């Protein structure tokens, strides 16, 4: 079994004249939780899109679970939740999960068992028969996390997972991620929520203008390990160098 669930080696991605990601080298160990921080336009979403094979890097290599993420079968053991998706409005959450289960090649019995489990987990049992168009933003986010967890992935990649969640849902979601971390899942998520990142992560990676300017343990960055990530995040950004 590979030590690293993903490895980005000297990865760059340009869009015309814009260099969205520049010579990025980053990896995630098995069972690690890493927060991916940076200002808007720092290259976080582009990096995530390269990680899951949605776009190819202009240069450098991306390895996901030991394979090429642009090959469909490599993505069988990952779960991904985008920043904000408006899932098929005419489906119920059960139908949504059945659809994604089919896409993952799961059989009906497994899909049903997993759906029951996940709906409990994300607290959508009561709303399971309602079409998704009647869901609030927070409920859609929970449906999103359920679809990402459906195939019991080894690696969970989440793009701004705390967006749109009310405080209670946020606490619940944080606890869910902690539970997954305790089960040994590797989690990589981008976020602007420094408090949540500090509470959840072993490591953080900070991006600025396409470069990774810090990658290391949260406690080393925060020093005393509590509430300082915001101040230090700003310091690292201002310095712009690798800590």
């Amino acid at each position: 079994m590979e030590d690293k669930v993903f490895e980005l080696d000297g990865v760059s991605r340009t869009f015309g004249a814009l260099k969205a990601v520049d010579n990025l080298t980053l990896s995630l160990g098995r069972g690690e939780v890493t927060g991916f921080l940076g200002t808007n336009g720092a290259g976080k979403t582009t990096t995530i899109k390269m990680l899951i094979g949605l776009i190819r890097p202009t240069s450098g290599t991306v390895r996901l679970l030991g394979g090429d993420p642009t090959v469909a079968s490599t993505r069988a053991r990952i779960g991904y939740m985008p920043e904000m998706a408006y899932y098929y409005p005419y489906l119920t959450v059960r139908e949504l999960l059945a659809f994604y289960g089919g896409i993952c090649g799961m059989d009906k019995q497994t899909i049903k068992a997993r759906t029951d489990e996940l709906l409990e987990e994300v607290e959508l049992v009561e709303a399971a028969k309602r079409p998704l168009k009647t869901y609030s933003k927070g409920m859609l986010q929970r449906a999103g996390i359920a679809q990402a967890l459906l195939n019991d992935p080894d690696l969970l990649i989440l793009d701004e997972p705390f967006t749109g969640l009310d405080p209670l849902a946020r606490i619940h979601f944080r606890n869910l991620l902690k539970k997954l971390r305790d089960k040994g899942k590797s989690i990589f998520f981008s976020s602007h929520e420094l408090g949540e990142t500090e509470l959840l992560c072993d490591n953080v990676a900070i991006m600025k203008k396409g470069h990774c300017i810090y990658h290391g343990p949260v406690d080393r960055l925060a020093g005393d390990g509590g509430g300082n990530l915001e101040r230090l995040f700003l310091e690292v950004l201002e310095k712009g160098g690798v800590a």
Partner: protein
Amino acid sequence: MKGVMRRIGALVKLSLLELWRRNDMFALLVLALVLLVPLSLARPFGASGATRYFDEAALLLIWGYSLFISLGIGGRLFTSEFANRTVYPLLAKPVSRGELLAGKYLGAVVASWSALVFFYVLWAVSSVLRGGECLSTCFLQAFVLHALFMALAVAAAVAGSFLLSPSASTTLLAILFPAMFFFGRRLPDYAENVSGVLKGLVYAVYWVAPHAEFFDMRQRLVHGWGGVEAGVFLSVVGYGVVYSAVLLLTARFLLTCKRL
């Protein structure tokens, strides 16, 4: 192979649910019932000849509805995925872009055909009520060619939605298909009466644009002329299949190149 079938099956089911849970589809079907039933049952002045014109008008309406449905479904197939950002979690699953296109296209075609079956059953019932034949060779050929035309129209709408904005593509195809349906066979005559660049342009349209009129068997069906020869029928089937395949390959290429 089993995994591929499951993935394509899931995509087909999604397209069917999308079509049949939309309110505008029900509005269209009710409208079809309201217009088609009186049209096909009407017996003006008891003259049998006149009923044929009503029959033909009913079939023309079916063609209009089917084009509307095909372009609507095909045009929305990927644009809604991109607009709602559902394409991202979908492509992060173990599904290739080719499978995604094949599954969604098949689903859209099956969904369109389910509406076509409804229209043809309605027309066949009214035909039987008037003492006509229902399951004639001509009727079956007309249905198969019409179904194939819908598959072609969906493929054109899908490819068009990658090239242009959805509304521009649908509008263009909504003009192109009826224009070819009514005037396609007259284009060479027209080309002979013009000269220069225009002549070349008319011939280019004649050879490149989809010949919707090839699939039209309304006259034969209404006037009881019987089916076409097997060779002609198979040629049109081949034309529809090849044309749809070319459009789908174009769509596959454009989907691969599309910036996500």
